[in-house]
């Protein structure tokens, strides 16, 4: 079998190469891609490497948001200025694989794989990320929920790729918590992102590894808003139990070799409670 490898150096070039043949597959850090190739779950005949494309490797601070190129690595996200701007994304990035994986793996690849256990997913979901897609036909922007439509399924059109991800810069507490059986380098059993929005006095809760598609615990977000005091950053403890239950109820986990649904359902609620009480101290309002 012969595999063609095309090294793209600009986004235009990616567009062109995909226009010529939309069956060509994109290779970013390769940390998901190559595992599939090695196990023969995937045998592409033509591959476009995109990790050397400068526009995709960069990120920039744009007013009250940051735009992160799809080929920005976990290493870049987990520390330095990006970690200050979007702390939950950095916290999640630090849980991904090993240093070697974080040096190679990218945020675009995590979205492209569209695994329910992808650690960027709950954070991007809770942040209300906007994903910029690009093809020779032009650009369009979608929400993560519109992009990831099933387990390892995206709504990317023929010849389309992920160019960047836009997330808000909030300058307020954010939390990412992940349960795995091992202390490091482990796929999420459950994970949760908790984002505070002081301006709208609301919170965003993204759930990881408990649903086939990106999911916010919307009812829990709305419910807990009434129990929060944004001046003193306190939460009324009387709301916590129900909040926890609402988060658990927003999950539809499965039994598999990593865990059981009952544990996932329970632990996602606990993660929500812990994130909440890390950010808001308990006190009767």
């Amino acid at each position, binding site marked *: *079998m012969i595999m063609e490898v095309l090294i793209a150096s600009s986004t235009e070039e990616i567009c062109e190469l995909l226009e010529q043949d939309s069956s060509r597959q994109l290779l970013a850090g390769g940390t998901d891609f190559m595992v599939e190739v*090695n*196990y*023969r779950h995937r045998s592409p005949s033509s591959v476009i490497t995109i990790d050397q494309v400068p526009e995709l490797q960069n990120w920039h601070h744009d007013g009250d948001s940051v735009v992160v190129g799809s080929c920005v690595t976990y290493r870049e996200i987990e520390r330095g200025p990006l970690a200050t701007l979007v702390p939950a994304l950095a*916290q999640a990035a*630090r*849980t991904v694989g090993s240093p070697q994986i974080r040096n190679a793996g990218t945020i675009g690849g995590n979205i492209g794989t569209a695994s329910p256990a992808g650690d960027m997913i709950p954070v991007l979901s809770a942040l209300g990320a906007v994903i910029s897609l690009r093809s020779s036909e032009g650009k369009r922007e979608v929400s993560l929920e519109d992009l990831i439509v099933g387990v390892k399924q995206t709504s990317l059109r023929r010849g389309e790729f992920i160019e960047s991800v836009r997330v808000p810069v909030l300058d307020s507490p954010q*939390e*990412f*918590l*992940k*349960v*795995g*059986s*091992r*202390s*490091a*380098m*482990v*796929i999420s*059993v459950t*994970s949760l992102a908790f984002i505070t929005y002081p301006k709208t006095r609301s919170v965003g809760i993204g759930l990881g590894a408990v649903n086939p598609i990106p999911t916010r615990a919307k009812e829990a977000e709305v419910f807990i808003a009434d129990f929060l005091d944004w001046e003193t950053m306190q939460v009324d403890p009387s709301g916590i139990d129900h909040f926890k239950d609402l988060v658990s109820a927003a999950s539809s986990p499965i039994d*598999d*070799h*990593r*865990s*059981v649904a*009952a*544990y996932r359902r*329970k*632990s996602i609620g*606990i*993660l929500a409670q*812990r994130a909440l009480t*890390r950010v808001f101290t308990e006190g009767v309002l």
Partner: protein
Amino acid sequence: MTTIESYKTKSGVGVSAQRPDAVPKATGKFSFSSDLSSHNMLWGQTLRSPLPSARIKSIDFSEALAISGVHAILTANDVPGKNLFGLEHPDQPVLADDLIRYAGEPIALVAAEHPEIAANAINAIHVTFEELTPLTDAESAITADPIHPEGNVIRHLKIDHGDPSVTGDLVIEGTYEVGMQDQAFMGTESGMAVPSPDGSVDLYISTQWLHSDQNQIIEALDLPEDMVRLTLAGVGGAFGGREDVSMHVHLCMLALHTGRPVKMIYDRNESFLGHVHRHPAKIWYRHHATEDGQIVKVEGKIILDGGAYASTTSAALANACCFSTGPYRVPNAQIEGWGVRTNNPPCGAMRGFGNVQTCFAIEAQMDKVAKALGIDPVELRLINALEQGDTIITGQKITGAAPVKEVISSLADHPMPGPAENNLLARPGGTGRTTDQKHIKRGVGFAVSIKNLMFAEGFDDSSEALCQVEDGNVAIHTACVEVGQGFITLIHQIAEEVLGTSDITIIPADTSIGSAGSTSASRQTWMSGGAVLKACEAVVVKLIEQIFEDEGVKYENFNGTLVSEDGTKTIPVSEALKGRSFHEKIVHRHAPTFPLNNKGQGDAHVSFAFAAHRAVVDVDQELGLVRIIEIATSQDVGRILNPLQAVGQIEGGITQGLGLAVLEELVMKNGVIQNANFTDYLLPTALDTPPIEIAALIEEPEPGAPFGAKGIGEPPTISSTPAVVAAIRDATGIDLRRVPVRPEDIALE
């Protein structure tokens, strides 16, 4: 005598001599079996069954054979000799011919110009199966329809010791389960077979026991012994998983068929399918104790799931049963064990061999007895600890060193660790940032173990060594396999001790010398170490004779220095060897052992080693997450030959033990492994491995053992597991009866 002491050099026995392969391994220059290559080499691959139980209806490989670059496709019909192999006895097909008995069973072999071509050919072989219902429950296997002509019960063993009518003031019952652990060595199976024009073959392979491999290969190839030569290739870890034949016969068949060298490397997934695992176990115990804490009787039933083929199930079951009452004095015992066949993957040797499973259960029982009687768990163990002169439940008297009390007391006296660092990373959940200080409960657990050293039950266990001197240059040859345990260091140290020089050549381990036995059962220091010692000593005896003939002066050897009878003359052995040649080959045996009789009684074992572990854990009970803070240990070692290597064995063994306690399990579903990869077979990372504190290494020389040294490789793995689980029980109050302990086992209680 004081002057003699000063001749002792710095690199003999007892010092931390550095491994000769340490730097090459650390810098990537060491050549592992996966690095083998040869001119004109082909690549082999194996087609394996996806189903755990099936009948092969047909195999069509015409399409595969037509692929350009494919040189051979072989099936059961092409096995030249007996299509059976097996470590204890041959019961496993080299290639499945009719029935598939486990998911992963080899069906066909391919040799091709390139691994990719071989993989394409594998995909182009079409096998039609008639799917059968797999037998996956070990307990029902005892009475179920046989899945193999030899039946489902590989071994049924009863130990009937003392008076069965005795009862205790306190009776404690418990049922326990052990999941399937894997050796998960770093270097996957790999090797190369090189054919010769005369129809013979040389196999370069990473293994644990060259001669056992050879015996099995010659039967399958129907060749005489001298036509199948094995040479050890660089081994990337073993832990029992390389004791069985894997690709050996396959490689030889492909090489002999194509007339070209053939190489194979299993990928990680295939490695998990291609070697035996630790036996999963179900164990029931009933302990009887007096009010003052003496164990007066133990009743037990032990079922080991051997998977589809026998491998070493029989010997593992013997270990499980013989040591089912732990390192304690138990005057009365009724133990019944079954090693059974199922359609699960074959299970066999892994570090701790049979003792790991029962130790987990017995130590849980000891804690329950202690709790029920209101006795401190350490105290209860001291009350019942075996001593030299005591009898174990097989009726065998312990004649060697048994410093069980010393091991326990020294560990109990060791200071406890302080609180964990105050940061998220140091808590349960690690990088996942799950756990705040307020969610943590600390627990402490203590466990003690016994391990028999070397082969048992009358096996004629031997090792051969050659000490060859040519014009003063010393070379030592054994077939002892270096799997990483450090025997090559020890050869230098022993040579230094006897010959006064560590400047020797080690001849690669191969089958041109007699068997060294397996690198397993904590036996090689005693067996091959003993053989090397005797071979070196034999050379010195000859040397002294020659000098006497030459000079008329009688010398005696003191640690590598010859001293004349009158004490006036000294000469280093290495000096005296110059210009001389010797060739001394000896076979070393340990004291004989005997089979167990129908009541499970007999002097079946050679020697025993003891260890104790104390684990301190922090548990986030709500989420069921565990962080091991420290494991401390004391171990009965006889004598330390290389402190650095001893610590290495202890740290590695404990890490494997804690892996079984909280992480490592091959998850089975209907006979199929669900996590045959390192994404989901979770080994401890550096963050999961706590500081390991050695409280004491008890040096009480073992009679009959070279230098008095006991094997030290296995004990660290055995009681570390129950110590960790006891600590989790202590922290949470949950009666955990299964390892590994999963988060849901704690959080959903």
